[in-house]
């Protein structure tokens, strides 16, 4: 029996700030959100139907039409393409008789593209009815489609067995591999959950906790690199009847998957970090915001939370500390990279479109439901537990002067050992390539995902750290045989076009204008001036509200700076002007409609 729309609405008290959960449950129960459901939600929550629709239509995984009994979301990230996605896509289309972006006539199959699902070390992969299928081959796809035609359950379709570690746990049952290849203080197995809560917190004041975190000099691992201790201090000082701790597990930057591994293998460490943060700032409620792609981890995470409540690591008088009350709920996203931006994350958790807010005010002053809120990355919160356990000074012994501690890297692309590596800050790109078994003919390395930098070999001596290459940890390696402009830069630029929230004029329009220019060059119609135009035009993006828009031209700009010759090889040298106009293309519709042909 599926829940009715009414019962779902009642479960969330018809509270419009819980619209995400309401929509997620309706989507899951019915496979889509019907217009009747939209009307019912609007009526019960007393908002207009367009208001409901503006949230629905923002998120990739909400649909207003059925998406097939078997819904396949095939990753279209750069690395998926490198690992043979095209063949997988063709096989799916051929075997199901359906095109991508469509649902088969009998309603059995729905095939859709989706951006990086956090499985770059095991591509090509797809999410089928919420389950992740990795390392796909055309052979496996044929098998899968045959199984679907036989009406098998997705669980039955998984013949590979389960992945390592907790992926095999009965609450997870996923074939995903952790691929942990190097451990350090964060991934260390030698950790007793709850130890800081039991042993340390009762002996320290919140101010002392903040002082210890400050002493470690740890900065945020989500990309922006803001000092964690300072953030907590701001939030502690902010006035508010309620305060919130958010853990950002939206992990949407193409090429990162280390948070997925932490959620799978070290969730207790993460939750302990959230409790420490709550103690430090005086928060009573926590929200773990997890990207929709990791929904297969839901039961696992919820059971750990339940266990923590039973052991008094969450709930009332935590760790025996009188009056220290804190609990955590999990909020799932629904497919929007920009929700990883902290204020968009908050908007989304409030049931709205994930549009970043104007700042000031910052979340530490006015965050979730306008209460002071700390947003921290998964890895940051895990590292803090170790800081509390061993002291800020111990933590500073790792890394460099400006970048203390270790960093989890998500390595993928052309190398022997893709996976998660915990290294000290200060590691050079060159050393990473050696460590992960990259071939000597590496052409380029993308550090920090699409919003980062495309490095050429002359820069491989650069180091990871806030003082040089600040990064959330996505490292993608490209061998000599890759077409950087077509396969990498174009894909990344389209990623930003698809993921822009559309609020800022700059971010909404400029990436499209730049993409069109890039296509002009790729189509052999470019001239030298087009290259310089792109560099010049990209500058307006700096006026965008959030990091997405501000970095949306990075793939183009950094590739022009470091690989200008690739552009020059492709532009026309015989002229300095080409409008890019293509007669045949421009009159295509007319020609088709009239049945005429163009004579050259």
């Amino acid at each position, binding site marked *: 029996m599926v829940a009715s729309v009414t019962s779902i609405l009642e479960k969330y008290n018809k509270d419009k700030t819980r619209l995400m959960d309401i929509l997620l449950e309706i989507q899951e129960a019915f496979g889509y959100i019907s217009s009747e459901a939209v009307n019912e939600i609007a009526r019960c929550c007393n908002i207009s139907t367009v208001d409901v629709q*503006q949230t629905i239509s923002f998120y990739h995984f909400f649909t207003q039409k059925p998406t097939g009994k078997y819904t396949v979301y095939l990753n279209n990230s750069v690395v998926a393409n490198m690992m043979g996605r095209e063949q997988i896509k063709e096989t799916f289309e051929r075997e199901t008789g359906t095109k991508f972006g469509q649902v088969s006539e009998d309603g059995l199959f729905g095939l859709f593209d989706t951006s990086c699902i956090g499985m770059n070390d095991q591509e090509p992969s797809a999410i089928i009815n919420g389950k992740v299928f990795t390392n796909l081959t055309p052979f496996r796809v044929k098998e899968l489609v045959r199984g679907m035609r036989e009406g098998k359950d997705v669980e039955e379709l998984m013949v590979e067995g389960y992945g390592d570690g907790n992926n095999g746990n009965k609450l997870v049952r996923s074939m995903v591999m952790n691929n942990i290849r190097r451990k350090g203080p964060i991934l260390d197995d030698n950790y007793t959950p709850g130890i800081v809560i039991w042993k340390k917190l009762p002996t320290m004041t919140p101010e002392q906790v903040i002082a210890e975190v400050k002493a470690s000099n740890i900065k945020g691992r989500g990309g922006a690199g803001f000092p964690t201790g300072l953030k907590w201090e701001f939030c502690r000082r902010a006035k508010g009847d309620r305060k919130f701790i958010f853990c950002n597990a939206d992990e949407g930057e193409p090429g990162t998957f280390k948070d997925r591994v932490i959620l799978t293998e070290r969730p207790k460490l993460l939750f302990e970090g959230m409790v420490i943060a709550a103690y430090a700032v005086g928060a009573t409620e926590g929200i773990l915001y997890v990207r929709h792609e990791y929904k297969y981890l839901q039961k696992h995470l919820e059971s750990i939370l339940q266990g923590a409540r039973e052991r008094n690591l969450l709930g009332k008088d935590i760790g025996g500390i009188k009056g220290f009350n804190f609990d955590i709920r999990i909020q799932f996203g629904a497919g929007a990279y920009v929700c990883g931006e902290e204020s968009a994350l908050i908007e989304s958790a409030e049931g709205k479109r994930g549009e970043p807010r104007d700042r000031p005010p910052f979340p530490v002053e006015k965050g979730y439901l306008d209460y002071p809120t700390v947003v921290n990355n998964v890895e940051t919160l895990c590292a803090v537990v170790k800081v509390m356990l061993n002291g800020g000074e111990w933590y500073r012994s790792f890394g460099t002067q400006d970048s203390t501690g270790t960093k989890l890297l998500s390595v993928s692309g052309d190398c022997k050992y893709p996976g998660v590596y915990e290294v000290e800050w200060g590691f050079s790109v060159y050393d990473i390539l050696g460590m992960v078994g990259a071939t000597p003919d590496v052409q380029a390395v993308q550090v920090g995902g699409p919003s980062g930098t495309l490095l050429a070999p002359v820069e491989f001596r650069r180091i990871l750290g806030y003082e040089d290459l600040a990064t959330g940890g996505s490292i993608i390696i490209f061998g000599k045989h890759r077409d950087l402009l077509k396969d990498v830069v174009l894909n990344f630029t389209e990623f930003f076009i698809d993921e822009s929230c559309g609020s800022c*004029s700059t971010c909404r329009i400029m990436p499209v204008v730049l993409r069109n220019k890039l296509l002009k060059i790729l189509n052999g119609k470019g001239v030298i001036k087009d290259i310089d135009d792109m560099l010049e035009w990209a500058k307006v993006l700096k006026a965008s509200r959030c990091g997405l828009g501000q970095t949306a031209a990075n793939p183009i700009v950094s590739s022009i700076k470091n690989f200008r010759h690739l552009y020059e090889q492709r532009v026309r040298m015989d002229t300095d002007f080409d409008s890019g106009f293509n007669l045949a293309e421009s009159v295509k519709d007319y020609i088709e409609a009239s049945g005429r042909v163009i004579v050259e």
Partner: protein
Amino acid sequence: MAKIVNFTIDGKDCIAEEGLYLVQAAKNNGVYIPTLCNYEGIKPKGSCRICTVRINGRLMTSCTTPISDGMKIESNTEEINDLRKAIIELLFVEGNHFCPACEKSGNCELQALAYRFKIMVPRYPYTFPQRRVDASNPKIIKEQNRCIMCKRCIRAIKDEQGRSLFAYKKRGHKSEVVLDPVLGLQMSDELARKAMAVCPVGSILVREQGFIQPIGTRKFDKKPIGSEIEMSQPTK
């Protein structure tokens, strides 16, 4: 009484009540900072980015940034003016804007800004999007070719219960601002007129209200947008 703070815009000494949005603070000092998505009386949502200034070195939008003591603001500089001009050009290439045939011509803020910034032709290629005209409502027409996604109508037009009549749909360059089909039918004449007035361009039109104002009497026929602020005396 609120605290009075000192700040400078392009070197000019200014004073204002602390916490006032920068656009307003500048206006009170007789300095015009171009705006487009901002609308007096409704909550700002820095979406057009035209009011961008440099504050102590950082790009910020002045419609959303509260003024504070000691701010050094750069606004009328070559860099910032070119940025604003570029943004206006982007808005022109994003949609399909044919000023001579538009009901709002002369009263359109986008057009007026283009004149003020002396735009002859945008530096970017037009994108010629396929957009629809939504004429399903008996009172107003939503002309999507001209919508610049400023969200003014979304923020300003609500029914008695506070429900929005307009909302965003989709995201990124596919975004649209749409009218609620149900609430739209119950819209009063007054609200319809307000919606048209709030729209800075000709995307929301009250039926049978086009071209009623003779050329020469329209808002920006005689003086460029912003000149009323520049000619005003600073308020104390």
